[in-house]
């Protein structure tokens, strides 16, 4: 008598797994978002740029560049020697009047796409950008099937009170 419920809990487990995956994938999208950067920034000896517009571009760019020594930190947050050097590089390029795109291109030419926390949307990054939506669709499809399956089931007190993690 308990079999349908047991089958449902298999479903529920798969569902939970997929949802966890989808939710886990989402924060990656916003990982380098400037708004999310409440953490303390590493401070350079030469202080802030005098031009406020340049300083804010500097802060935004360095937050979007990965420190390759400590790979989960941005070069804005890291005190690694390489991060200090790369901040100096960004600062100099800004002062020299280079565009944000030129600075990102400089970095990816040398360190590869991995240096950017927010990879550009292109064929080879489609999977990264698309994965959360694929997960969501998959999870949604499973929920839909489970719900429809339940709606069709005869009301059965014993099965309904069986173990079910979705309750």
């Amino acid at each position, binding site marked *: 008598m308990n079999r349908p419920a047991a*089958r449902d809990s*298999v*479903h529920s*487990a*798969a569902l939970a*797994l997929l949802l966890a995956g989808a939710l886990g994938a989402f924060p990656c999208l916003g990982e380098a978002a400037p708004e999310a950067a409440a953490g303390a920034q590493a401070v350079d000896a030469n202080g802030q740029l005098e031009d406020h517009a340049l300083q804010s571009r500097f802060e935004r760019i360095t937050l979007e560049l990965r420190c*390759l*020594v400590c*790979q989960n930190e941005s070069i804005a947050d890291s005190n690694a*020697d*390489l991060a200090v*050097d*790369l901040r100096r*590089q960004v600062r100099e390029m800004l002062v020299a009047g280079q565009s944000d795109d030129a600075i990102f291109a400089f970095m*990816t*030419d*040398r*360190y*590869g*796409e*991995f240096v950017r926390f927010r990879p550009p949307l292109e064929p080879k990054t489609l999977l990264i950008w698309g994965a959360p939506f694929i997960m969501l669709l998959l999870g949604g499809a499973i929920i839909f099937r489970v719900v429809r399956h339940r709606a069709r089931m005869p009301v059965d007190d014993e099965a309904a009170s069986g173990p079910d993690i979705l309750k």
Partner: protein
Amino acid sequence: MWKFLLPFAAFVALAVLFAFGLNPQRDIHALPSPLIGKPAPAFTLTDAMDPTHSVSSGTYQGQVYVLNVWGTWCAACREEHEALLAISRTHVVPIVGLVWKDDRDKAVQWLTQLGNPYQAVALDGDGRTAIDWGVYGAPETYLVDAQGRVIYKFISPITQQVWETEFLPRIAAARRSGA
């Protein structure tokens, strides 16, 4: 039937993912270099062994050479030093040293004490040349062909085995196609 197959398929997918992701042979910090196949970044730097001279990438145009990035602050560089010395004694290719973010005095002392495997040692005190080469840790070892293109990058201490399996075949191939 598919209700049993689905969890099983999910299990297989996870198993495959973990087999790749958790493979202890795989160094998750080693990144592919975007420089491979591209012209090696040019540099002209002070010769650490003789500051009145400079070391220039142009000198090695037309021959296959190795660029080894190191520093006296780098413990792993000391680890690979014996292997570098042994490799240099075979005279297969010139090895150029790039001393990364270091003092000249310390570099000279290191090479005097431990032996010098380098044909020339370029002093990159402020790390600008290293940025051009995409260096993010030491030691790193690059292989440049006779046309001046980077053909291989090895991250972490070099060993005799790595030299034989990764470098020598590429050197031979570069010479076959370049000559």
